[in-house]
């Protein structure tokens, strides 16, 4: 087991190094820098001297390799620099926004579980019936609708036409828990419907696989009611992929989270990252890419180790 973990760990380190190289390549390829981006729309930059001065203050007149090397040195030591676009300390920005995005993810996961598991179970139990087809179609539709479209439609239905929830805005949980939850209702729902759809499909197929096993047939032969069979013997093993699916879907949630964060005015990581790309805000962009990748890496690593623990064959094969 330890050898397995060791190998996986080594792989992860290699991947991390490759990710860093990729981030650098991206930064290198994207033309322009934050000050130039600001130039286009900001007449405070009307003077070439001003532009040159600000670029110099931010070290943007150095070659990219130098900038990146300097940045990386500071980054690993915990100094994430200052955002060129907003002037905030980057680490502070992260720490401010991380809990918010996490809350969004947790909420979305709750919705996904609340929607996905029942739908998946029903789909498996009533396999190939009209209900199953309807549910399958529903889950695929849930996955396919662009998140931003779904969000806008829902805002107007549930926040303007029938003012049930606020149209946007974020209130920190510490400040007012109830209002915070109310404000997060719609955003988490929109984000959750996607993962919910995916989850439903996984649950369904996993449960079907379990139901096809011999020991289920034995339980039925023993005379147990279908309900007892399902509840006592099928559900728990059927849920194994759930955890891993949820974990793995967090990586994909970030993109959806961006749209949700912009539309609902939630100050989260997703929005910060993409805006940084547009504004060529290198410190923020690089930090976001690495942190996000690290997150996915860690999740994958944990899942790998978990699988290795649960299924010895995986260990050997690797």
């Amino acid at each position, binding site marked *: 087991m330890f050898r397995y973990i060791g190998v996986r760990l080594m792989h992860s380190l290699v991947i991390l190094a490759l990710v860093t190289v*990729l981030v650098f390549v*991206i930064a290198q390829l*994207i033309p322009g820098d934050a000050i130039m981006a600001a130039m286009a729309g900001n007449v405070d930059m009307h003077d070439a001297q001003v532009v040159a001065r600000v670029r110099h203050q931010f070290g943007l007149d150095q070659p990219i390799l130098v900038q990146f090397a300097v940045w990386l040195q500071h980054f690993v030591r915990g100094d994430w620099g200052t955002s060129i676009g907003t002037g905030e300390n980057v680490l502070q920005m992260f720490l401010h926004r991380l809990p918010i995005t996490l809350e969004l993810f947790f909420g979305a996961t709750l919705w996904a579980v609340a929607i996905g598991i029942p739908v998946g179970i029903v789909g498996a139990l009533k396999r190939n019936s009209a209900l199953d087809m309807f549910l399958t*179609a529903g889950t*695929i539709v849930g*996955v*396919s609708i662009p998140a931003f479209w779904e969000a806008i439609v829902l805002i107007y239905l549930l926040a303007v036409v029938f003012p049930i929830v606020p149209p946007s805005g974020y209130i920190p949980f510490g400040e007012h828990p109830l209002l915070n939850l109310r404000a997060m209702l719609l955003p988490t729902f929109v984000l959750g419907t996607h993962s919910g759809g995916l989850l439903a499909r996984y649950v369904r197929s996993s449960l079907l*696989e379990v139901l096809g096993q011999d020991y289920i047939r034995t339980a039925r032969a023993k005379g147990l009611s279908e309900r007892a069979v399902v509840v006592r013997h099928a559900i728990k093993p059927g849920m194994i992929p759930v955890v891993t699916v949820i974990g793995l879907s967090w990586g994909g949630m970030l*993109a959806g989270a961006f749209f949700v964060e912009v539309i609902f005015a939630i100050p989260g990581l997703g929005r910060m990252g993409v805006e940084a790309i547009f504004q060529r805000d290198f410190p923020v962009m690089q930090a976001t890419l690495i942190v996000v990748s690290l997150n996915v890496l860690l999740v994958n690593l944990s899942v790998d180790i978990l699988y290795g623990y649960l299924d010895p064959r995986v260990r050997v094969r690797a």
Partner: protein
Amino acid sequence: MSEVVRVAPIPPGRSRSARLALLRAVFQHRLASVGLGIIAVLCFIAVFAPLLAPYSPYDQDLYKVLAPPSAAHWLGTDNLGRDLFSRLLYGARVSLFVGIVSSALSAALGVAIGLVAGFNGGVIDAIIMRVTDAFLCFPPLIFILAMSAALGPGLQNVMLSFALFGWTGFARITRGQVLQIRELPFIEAARAIGMSPYWIMRRHILPNAVAPILVAITITVGTAILIETGVSFLGLGVQPPTASWGKELRIGFTYLETAPLFSLAPGLMISLAVVAFNFVGDGLRDALDPRLRGAGLVRR
């Protein structure tokens, strides 16, 4: 995109009847049929847009912007007074084109890399797999966004950016297939006889790997359309005055209050297309899995 689908390998000589059986299974699958139907309609629209559209998608009328639906303009007009219905019809061309080409490019790149990895094994395989993993650490949209920003505006660059990320899924699938198949006795036999690896790949490995790749291509078309929407939504992508659904959705979004149809209609088309491709991919996958519905061993 990176699912590993377990498929019963088809010994040589049985491929043709197996393929027919596959097609039959797909058609029998109701959802997939619906999907195919939708795709057929969309393709028809795309091809015959010039004949179907009542107006040119480029005719502006600045005194009739954001007009509500009327007899003259069935879906109303857009922010430059152009007929929205015509724009949507022409938009099908761009969106479908982007979806299909992006997917095909990704497949071409990914399959090639996957074959190399799977067949060679050892260090080459290890390196390629780590590189794949590194790419997959990035959220797709962000990576493609960055690539689009780097490459510049325009449709080709969006497709290229997509392929630069999308190859990863295909590489994984292909490699998985190669690994499964190459251990089989008849492959060993072929190698023992002295057949060239290239011939073995072509004759034995590829035909068997085709099925899950096909599933992946179908689903990737839907993903590519969504990505194009996302990229257009954020301001990159297709240049004016070309109509793409993603671009219409983006501009329509700013006028949501005054002209909801402007964003609802393209949004609907996008969803339809993506749903249709997902249905078909779903049906294909179901038809291929020998262990009865569901996806067998699935790892995303």
